[in-house]
């Protein structure tokens, strides 16, 4: 088993109703499975629909970071998580 911290931001926070949480998960877990687990537990599956499109790809402009690294530059939703990882999830956010 591994321990993973998840941080949720902006309107995703409104969907799941939490800022962050710690999960204990099987050692082979991927980002996709983590999002599904979070979504089922805190949003009755709604978060998953906001994060992934129907083909299972991450929605345009949604950002998932593992230890500050965008998963687009790792293995996407198939990125394997390790003990102590921090996952941050953002809907499209602009600023500047």
């Amino acid at each position, binding site marked *: 088993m591994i321990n993973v911290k998840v941080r949720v931001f902006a309107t995703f926070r409104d969907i799941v109703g939490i800022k962050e949480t710690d999960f204990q998960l099987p050692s082979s877990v991927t980002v996709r499975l983590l999002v599904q687990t979070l979504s089922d537990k805190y949003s009755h599956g709604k978060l998953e629909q906001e994060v992934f499109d129907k083909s299972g790809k991450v929605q345009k402009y949604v950002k998932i970071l593992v230890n500050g690294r965008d998963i687009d530059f790792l293995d996407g939703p198939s990125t394997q998580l390790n003990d102590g990882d921090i996952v941050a999830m953002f809907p499209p956010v602009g600023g*500047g």
Partner: protein
Amino acid sequence: MEISVLRVDLAEKSSKVEKIGDQVLRRYLGGRGLGAKILYDELKPKVDPLKPENKLIFMTGPLVGTYIPTAGRFHVITKSPLTGGLGEANCGGDWGPEIRFAGYEGIILEGRSSEPVYLWIHDGAVEFKSAGKLWGNGVWQTEDRIREELGAKDAKIASIGPAGENLVLIAGIVNKKHRVAARTGVGAVMGSKNLKAIAVKGAKKMPVADDAKLHETVKKVQQVIKENPYTGKSYPTLGTMALFNMMNEPGILPTRNFQSGYFPKADAVSGETLRDKYVKGQTSCWGCPIQCGRVTEVKTGPYKIDGQGPEYESVWALSADCDVDNLEAVIKASNLCDDMGIDTISYGNTVACAMELFEKGKIPKSDLGNIDLRWGSAETVVNLVEMTARRKGFGNHIADGCMRLAKKYGAPELAMQVKGLELPAYEPRGVQGQALAFATSNRGACHLRAYMAATEIMGFGLGMPMKLDRFETKGKAIMTKMAQEALAVIDSLNICKFAVFAIGFPEMSAMLNGVTGWNLGPLDMMKAGERIYNLERMFINREGFTGKDDTLPKRFIETPMPDGPSKGHTVKLSEMLPDYYRQCGWEDGKPNQAKVKQLEI
């Protein structure tokens, strides 16, 4: 096509209208481009920016004041007293369109009035009114008092606060009480001319060459803005502060004067916290459907304030950069900066520089009076605003920006600046392209000259989805160059850069042609952007800037990021800069003859 520009001689208290023809307009578009052209042609090299010889130019653009969404901005162009190079700042609010309603594309201010005045431009008249009783007032009171004095409730006013009056080198020009042409010290130039404010009222209808075609384009643009996840949801929901955690999580939120890129206390001052505790409404600039502005209130306590904002850059400068986690103090300080007419980025960055100088034992306590320069002092961040604007006590040192402050205390390497302009809210070591953009920006360190962080963090560039690896250097040179030129076009049209999260050059081209009757395609517009960027570069070259100024504080190049998600990284500027110069056609930071000829400058 021909436009009218108002030229004002403040010494003689006279004005005249001049025409600018189609040939110049097609090449420089308007706004920033046209202002740069006028400044380059008219300003003698090496003039003292705070002497009467400097010129202060306000320029709108061909789309401003029409029914095109977000076309409500103006650009200020001058020689900067902060950097000694190009002084320029873009601004929203409601003042820009009113200049066009009064019949002018822009205003060129020359000379210096012998006593404080403000201008009242209305019904074809230009009046010089005494500002003796307004001198010393904050911007908010100035706006109210001028409207009352003129009996013109709906006059639009751009003014300086005490900071501009006192030649504070980080002073801006404010309109609609909270919208600031902030950067490069343009407010000090206005103060040096003894000009407190420009009040305007007009009623002219904006000329549109092809109304039916433009209506059709605008309808589509409005729809795209509404449906786009940034302009239709993120900005309206959380404003620019949505970005705070987005920049902190990858470790590029500069903390303690850029000693780190991760602020552990971010959540206390984040956009989510601002929304949950202090936001009571939304607001926008003239003609903007995006509504990114926040109306905020701190109801009780020492930082009680009923105001607006603060924006992402302001919150960063006043919180993470100074290690402050008190959001009420940040809201207060940001609003005070608006009222005093101060650039929040340069102010917060300079206070953070002072805190690091103090930490390293460079500032003797005897210089501080009752100011506490320890990291995290919320009181200091609030109290120094007015002291800076009025050049009182230690505020007199903050007033001249971080480069002069750090030099005075013998540690110039602690000034986080490029070409004299304070860095904004992106840690260069975690975003290589943004680092190159800071180093090569004509006006000094600025995210608004090429917003590479959008491409490296947010997944967006040049009006389309685009994501580049933030730690890679490959491909950053050409992308930075194109972004610099694209944003020069946007500032010349004077639409909002946030709209460009939803629309691209095809839409901009259609809107420009609909208004002007021209037939400029996206490539013609990009060439105009390149021309403008190169002309600006030629201006700073003439003032003495060369390739050696296209650099960054050595901290970013020599010291690996000590902690956080960007740990271990430095900026690899030497891997990008030669490629950038090659792409630009520059040698030693200067456009070569072939490039100047090609662009017909």
